[in-house]
């Protein structure tokens, strides 16, 4: 199978090194190959189920290409391959740096990382939606449907959804968003931000929602006092973002969408566990998320109390 894949890749890239499987997720594979001096990464569909609300690899490649053209720090897109030994795939540059969140928060990251994150996000939110007509608009109402699909009672999540309904800030015009912009989906080294990865959740949405996702406590990787992804404060991040976009996002909007991010991830934990429980992807890692979601539910309660809910 690797030989077939190599042959198909060489038809596009010329002679390459033996592909090495880096990570095997349930829905995507990542292979490292070198073509001469070029260090490349092949992102290929895996056998598992494709999830709702995620882009196909063809569309993800188009978003990556649009981001690259707009000067966003991303791996350089190389080629989309419709049939790579039976599955779709694309090839991109393989960036050097750390992507594991738990390690990034322990690295000596430069002080300007929050500002760099804001700069990349401002560029992303400026991408042309006309160029990417397949992107769908998301709403927080979708969260209710996802929770109902799980079918378990979770009063803390209901309370979060209730608060979100009652306190909705005036909606902003939807823009192209990354959809999963947080530490863990960024490549970072000692000099700062190297690249933004994992574009499969790109869609059209309120920019403040995308901006706030990196604040969710679960993505602070054990450094809760640093609100921005365990690496810094939210203020310089928000300030730089506003400076570049002129959107004038208010701190209260960050608070609102931080609650929404937690509600989304609390439901995400349950839907991940469902993948195991329904037999889609049997895995002890997915199974335990069904229980660890209680951490996120606790954070929802904590944030609502801080908002004065009694």
């Amino acid at each position: 199978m690797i030989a077939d894949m190599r042959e198909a890749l060489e038809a596009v890239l010329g002679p390459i090194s033996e592909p090495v499987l880096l990570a095997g997720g349930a829905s995507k594979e990542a292979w490292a190959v070198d073509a001469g001096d070029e260090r490349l990464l092949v992102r290929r569909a895996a056998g598992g189920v494709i999830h709702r609300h995620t882009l196909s690899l063809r569309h993800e490649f188009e978003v990556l290409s649009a981001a690259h053209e707009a000067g966003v720090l991303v791996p350089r897109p190389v080629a989309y391959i419709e049939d790579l030994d039976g599955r779709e795939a694309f090839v991109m540059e393989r960036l050097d740096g750390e992507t594991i969140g738990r390690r990034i928060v322990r690295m000596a990251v430069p002080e300007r990382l929050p500002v760099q994150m804001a700069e990349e996000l401002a560029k992303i939110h400026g991408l042309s939606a006309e160029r990417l007509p397949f992107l769908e608009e998301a709403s927080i109402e979708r969260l209710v449907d996802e929770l109902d699909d799980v079918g378990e009672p979770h009063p803390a999540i209901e309370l979060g959804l209730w608060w979100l309904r009652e306190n909705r800030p005036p909606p902003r015009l939807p823009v192209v968003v990354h959809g999963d912009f947080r530490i863990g989906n960024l490549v970072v080294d000692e000099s700062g931000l190297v690249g933004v990865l994992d574009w499969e959740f790109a869609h059209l949405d309120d920019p403040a929602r995308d901006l706030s996702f990196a604040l969710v406590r679960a993505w602070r990787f054990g450094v809760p006092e640093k609100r921005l992804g365990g690496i810094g404060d939210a203020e310089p991040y928000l300030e730089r973002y506003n400076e570049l976009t002129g959107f004038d996002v208010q701190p209260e909007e960050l608070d609102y969408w931080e609650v929404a991010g937690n509600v989304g991830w609390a439901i995400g934990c349950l839907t991940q566990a469902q993948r195991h429980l329904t037999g889609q992807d049997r895995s002890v890692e997915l199974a335990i998320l069904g229980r660890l979601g209680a951490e996120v539910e606790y954070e929802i309660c904590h944030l609502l109390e801080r908002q004065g809910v009694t």
Partner: protein
Amino acid sequence: MSERPTPDELTEAIEEFLAGEILATLEDQRLRFRTLVALNALGIVRRELAQLPPQDDAEQRELAARIRAGDVPVGTIARVKADVEQRLRIASPNYLDRYSDE
């Protein structure tokens, strides 16, 4: 209170992991033997769990439905938070310590 995965479902996931992923990688005969013994032990746990009465989530369902309907009287959050705390004492007991300074 009801929780998924249930204790039986969690134990089953461990069983599948050991039998399906770990066992095939083990060359050391002693480790293979002990892993088979561990799987037997998990089988005992599962059969024991099967004798427990099923969990009852009626109260949580009712609370969730009331909040969905917008019926959120003062004191709701305290009750909900206490329930989540109780679940965390099982699922992730150290997690609560991280809030001690806040």
